[in-house]
């Protein structure tokens, strides 16, 4: 028998492990405002459905889909990624926020989940609700757009 106290501590550990990456992916896909809201909703969902979520091998993909579903509640006419303060992130090109903003939502999700969060194409496909081929296409196009905006050629990397 698992006590409620044990459950809350187990969930707190889960949050420490999963929430930062989930928040990063959702904020990167939907922008800071909506990203924050849907991260909260996804974690609330995780708590509410803990018996199922705790058994998932890759809960992040599942919870990203939950966040994606909830994002419709917080639709914004325009997603704005905040400009960079040079002293805070000196190694990031100031053009990056605008470049990220110009990507489609699915392109952002594909690039971030695949290349930043390390999900497989299949996991991203399930998370975003598209085929693996579409994930690959979105990721490639998204990354190409970012590189073009930053003036970086793949060979330079």
């Amino acid at each position, binding site marked *: 028998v698992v006590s409620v106290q044990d459950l*809350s501590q187990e969930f707190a550990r889960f*949050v420490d492990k999963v929430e930062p990456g989930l928040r990063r992916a959702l904020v990167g896909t939907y922008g800071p405002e909506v990203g924050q809201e849907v991260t*909260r909703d996804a974690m609330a969902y995780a708590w*509410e459905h*803990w018996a199922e979520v705790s058994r998932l091998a890759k809960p992040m993909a599942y919870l990203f889909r939950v966040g994606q579903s909830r994002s419709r509640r917080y639709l914004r006419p325009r997603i704005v990624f905040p400009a*960079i303060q040079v002293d805070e992130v000196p190694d990031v*090109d100031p053009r990056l926020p605008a470049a990220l903003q110009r990507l489609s939502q699915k392109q952002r999700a594909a690039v*971030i989940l695949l290349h930043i969060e390390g999900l497989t194409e299949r996991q991203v496909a399930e998370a975003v609700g598209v085929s693996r081929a579409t994930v690959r296409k979105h990721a490639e196009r998204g*990354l190409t757009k970012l590189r073009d905006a930053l003036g970086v050629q793949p060979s330079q*990397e």
Partner: protein
Amino acid sequence: LTDNTLQQLREYLDHVSAEVAMDLQPKSPHAARTRRRGVLLGIAAAALVFAVAIPSLLLDSGPTSPTGAIPIRPLDLGTEHIWPDGGFTGTADQLASDFAEKALGWVNATVTSDIQTGPTWTSITHDELGEVRILSIPVGVNERAVIQVGPGVISTNVGEDVGRYFVTLPGLEGAHTADVHIRFRGAETTVLVTASPEDLRQHRVSVSGDSFPLTVVAVYRNSDGDAIGADGGSFGG
């Protein structure tokens, strides 16, 4: 990451997402400004607990006074979490002490929290009268709120029957009456009704409201009017 563009993207996303970090330990003032939905975590937590088992009691009543000398005022219940409306600035222990004083009238209760971060169960103990456990979560920078009152297995519940709302109560040994604090959906204030001994025997009290009960706290009192226990929860947003 070996790709420079992706390294920059990772660093940028780390920076931006940290600014809106909310999770269970808010890290920035910005998080506090926009943390409203964080309380959904609390509501979900309560939902989880309520899903485990449904109580069997309900009440009805009109606002009659309990037998004790303690003046009873409606608690300042919230809409997205149980109490207080708007959050409490302080630690889990401080929140519990304040709850003990305002909800139970226990001035010198002993409070003990399992942990000090994240969802935290806190035990409020009165040497002579009993124990109440509350579950609180951070809802902003240095702010917390109660999202569950009671043992977390059998607790209050709400429902609608033939167009009339009711609250069920699990009851408590030695309870003579119960203060039932209710905030209805869309309401600006909390309503307080008293469950009579008969209500407690029936485990049910009907309540008057134009909308569904959103948050409920029931405080059980013995025949002397002293609070001896409490439970409550949130029932959807």
